[in-house]
């Protein structure tokens, strides 16, 4: 394991600390000479957990060697345990002992190689190895493997019997498409890797697996296309992953938060998806995919702003349709962040810009409304956010009711009660709908946050404030990097070639499909290539780890 020293220290600390259930002041737990003693140690370590399955057997025919197979029920595949582990132990070990008695050679050497012999001659499982490290054995048992203990032997045979219940591959619940593949990632990292491999049958597709989280030992797989993804990008991604020191990794969001370039920004700089086709497409474009065990959401990096407006469907539909849909998405993002603030600026500062007839309507609507427009908007936006939050959390059966009650009944009632003007309901509803038109949920949330900032700017300064806000927004976005790639690429820095799949999706024959991305990469000018060295802006936890690592090195 290539973890930082900090992490090792943590682990050591965790091991030596006295825990409930562990006899105080006793010898450290580990494999003992006798099976019974070892089993006791395992039981102690797990706190006598009842799901620990121990099968004590005697192998070797006449010799009757004490042995035990240990696994956790639920995690291990019972069929594999019964058939391949216990079956091979009970059926094929007799010959080994016969050979031994016949040979009559140096008994000490024979003794040491007994587990080795079982491993190489008796075990029928595809995945098996000899392990002496106590920690590794415990980890294997906790991952669903079966450990075989032998009398008089300070090593255990670990057999790969991971299994248990898993969710089947099904249609993703987010990022739906009308046309396109309907399979989605699941919680198992192995299945997810297979889903990607099934799409890219190329030897260039490389995979690296890490275990992160000192308590959870979560499998984290990093995939990339060798020769297409930039070497510096791969190195940077690997480095940042290795620097993660956290007790638990339960979702890819944990990792995203730790490896992103800048913490204090509403904009996501790492893309996540539930769709294998999106992951595969991004791999082929030279991006790195990070799959975390236990979640169907994989991370894709680096991610630029325009990527969050691409949908998997853009590539299944004809390009003219895709262009139209994509323009609608950009438009809805503008409506989302500027809609309420433009309305506010128009009515409170720039009434002369509203057509006279419309102005008369607005005037008569506002006649008996008690609140200023700003308060009115805040009330309505807050109400809408509450509705949306309620709708998401509600059980599916009554989720519909919430939206109907919220949108229709509340909207009408609020207007009839004279608290809100009807046009305000239109503005708020439109921005609400606009937020759902974005294909990336995290970008929609970013828009929702920014919207409130613009609302305040508009209430203080009118259009002047909105313009100031836009300048600030663009400045902030220009300062963002995703693994060294400018967030606004290909707008800033401007690249005409990079525009083939941004505002418009150009037809595939124009998209340069005939040219491998690595070649296109070579054609790029230097300043557009990936740059790293933004550690300044890395999250504090990783920064801290970097510093301790450096200090250790100096010592």
């Amino acid at each position, binding site marked *: 394991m290539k973890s930082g020293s900090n992490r090792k220290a943590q682990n050591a600390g965790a091991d030596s600390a006295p825990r409930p259930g562990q006899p105080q002041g006793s010898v450290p737990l580990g494999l003992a000479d006798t099976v019974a003693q070892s089993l006791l140690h395992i039981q102690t370590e797990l706190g006598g957990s009842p799901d620990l399955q121990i099968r004590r057997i005697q192998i070797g025919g006449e010799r009757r060697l004490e042995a035990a197979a240990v696994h956790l029920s639920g995690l291990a595949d019972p069929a594999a345990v019964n058939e391949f582990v216990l079956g091979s132990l009970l059926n094929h070990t007799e010959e080994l002992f016969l050979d031994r008695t016949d040979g009559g050679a140096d008994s000490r050497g024979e003794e040491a190689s007994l587990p080795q012999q079982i491993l190489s001659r008796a075990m029928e499982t595809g995945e098996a190895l000899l392990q002496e490290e106590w920690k590794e054995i415990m980890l294997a048992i906790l991952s669903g493997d079966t450990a075989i203990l032998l009398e008089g032997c300070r090593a255990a045979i670990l057999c790969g019997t991971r299994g248990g219940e898993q969710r089947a591959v099904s249609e993703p619940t987010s990022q739906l498409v009308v046309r396109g593949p309907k399979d989605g990632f699941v919680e198992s990292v192995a299945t997810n890797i297979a889903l990607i491999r099934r799409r890219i049958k190329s030897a260039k597709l490389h995979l690296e697996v890490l275990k992160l989280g000192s308590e959870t030992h979560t499998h984290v797989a990093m995939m990339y296309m060798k020769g297409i993804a930039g070497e510096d990008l791969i190195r940077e991604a690997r480095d940042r992953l290795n620097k993660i020191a956290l007790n638990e990794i339960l979702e890819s969001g944990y990792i995203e938060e730790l490896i992103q370039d800048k913490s204090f920004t509403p904009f996501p700089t790492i893309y996540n998806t539930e769709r294998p086709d999106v992951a595969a497409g991004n791999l082929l474009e030279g991006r790195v995919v990070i799959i975390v065990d236990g979640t169907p959401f994989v991370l894709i990096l680096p991610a630029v702003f325009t990527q969050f407006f691409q949908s998997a469907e853009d590539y299944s539909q004809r390009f003219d349709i895709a262009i139209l849909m994509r323009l609608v998405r950009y438009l809805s993002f503008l409506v989302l962040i500027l809609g309420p603030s433009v309305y506010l600026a128009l*009515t*409170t*500062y720039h*009434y*002369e810009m509203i057509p*006279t007839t419309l*102005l*008369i*309507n*607005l*005037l*008569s*609507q*506002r*006649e*008996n*409304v008690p609140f*200023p*427009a*700003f308060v009115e908007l805040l009330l309505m936006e807050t109400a809408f956010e509450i509705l949306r939050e309620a709708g998401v959390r509600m059980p599916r059966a009554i989720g519909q009711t919430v939206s109907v009650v919220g949108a229709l009944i509340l909207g009408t009632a609020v207007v009839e009660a004279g608290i809100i003007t009807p046009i305000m309901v239109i503005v708020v509803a439109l921005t609400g709908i606009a937020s759902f038109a974005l294909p990336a949920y995290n970008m929609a949330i970013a828009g929702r946050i920014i919207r409130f900032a613009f609302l305040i700017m508009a*209430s*203080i300064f*009118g259009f002047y404030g909105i313009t100031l806000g836009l300048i600030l927004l663009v400045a902030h976005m220009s300062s963002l990097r995703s693994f060294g790639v400018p967030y606004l690429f290909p707008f800033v820095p401007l690249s005409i070639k990079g525009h083939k799949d941004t505002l418009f999706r150009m037809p595939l024959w124009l998209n340069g499909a005939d040219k491998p991305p690595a070649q296109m990469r070579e054609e790029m000018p230097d300043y557009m290539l990936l740059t790293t060295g933004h550690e300044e802006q890395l999250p504090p936890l990783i920064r801290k780890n970097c510093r301790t690592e450096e200090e250790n090195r100096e010592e």
Partner: protein
Amino acid sequence: MRNRIFGGIGVLFVLPMLLLTGCWDSVELNRRAIVSGVAIDRGDSEAERYKLSFQVIVAEEISGEKSRGISPVALYTGTGRTMFEALADASRQTARFLSLGHVRVLVISEKFARAGIKDLLDVLERESDTRLNSLIFISKGQPAREIMSTMTVFSKIPANDLVEKLETTSKQFGYNFRMAVDDVIRGIQIRGGGPVINGVFTRGEWTPASGSNDSLKSIEPRSILRVSSLAAFKDDKLKGWLTGDAALGTVLLHNRIKEFPVLLKQQEGGYFSFNIYQSQVSLAVESSDPEHPVFTVKITQQAALKEAPHPLDLTSPKVLEELSDRLIKESVKHIQAAVSTAKELGSDYLGFGRALQRKDPRGWKKVRDHWEDVFADCEIRFDADVVIRHTDMRSNSFQIH
């Protein structure tokens, strides 16, 4: 890190400054009184140099559900020695801020216009709230106030009705055209000439009752706003009214007319009528001697025959050619009427001087100070061409057989 802390403190200081300044200039819509039209009159005394009447929209009466059945607009009048003073005076009578951002119509009384509108236009251009594309009218022979207080049939806001009336007449057979504040300002700057502004008056006797809904209750409203006549200016002062051929010729010279009817009297009695649907008039100048320039008015028009009272053979090119020759004479007559009226009024609002300036800027410099005199006796030639494009749905009338 330290920088960041200082930055954070800086933001903490700046933020209250932004928030505590409040929302300057911010006015909620229900605190505004939207002015749709302004009438500008001149009172008798110096204190009433400007008498401004603001037509304010009562929005609730127009589209609200809880209307009280009162008038959809209200008129507030303020007086003062300057525009600003008059505006302030009127503001004191209203409960809300008089907002001039939606003024669509400015009506200036004839009396005011004859005294000069220079100062007024300066205010309109300087004031940030007013628009340069509000339409300007001159009320013909009556106070402008009366125009702004006449109830109209087709729009609840009389100012809007006036705008629509102008648009309709300018599209259909009328010689009035859109004349906004900026057009007038540009017109005033023409040396030796001036702008041409639409006239408006009420047909029928104007009484205070014209401002009430009762006036509209009969099928025939007692007083109707009518857009007609053109007010011709010399510099910023009203000189006279153009009607009939003189007005038509003026608009033809400005190329601002879309279509208009022309009648030819038949010797047998009755009239041929034509619709001129395309007209292009341009000025050519020969200025070997700037003191005596020679202008050639080039007219190209296309006509459609609309009425033929006599069974002429309209399929014969000869007949049509004869008719177009007579149309040419008509066109020349229009322009001639316009020119002679302009010469009488002593104002070159037709743009002859500008044509000379474009052709011969140096010569123009010599004559521009006494351009009125040069214009009064310059020679004008005509080069007209009128083509009858079609005779509408029929060629020969059924009467011919």
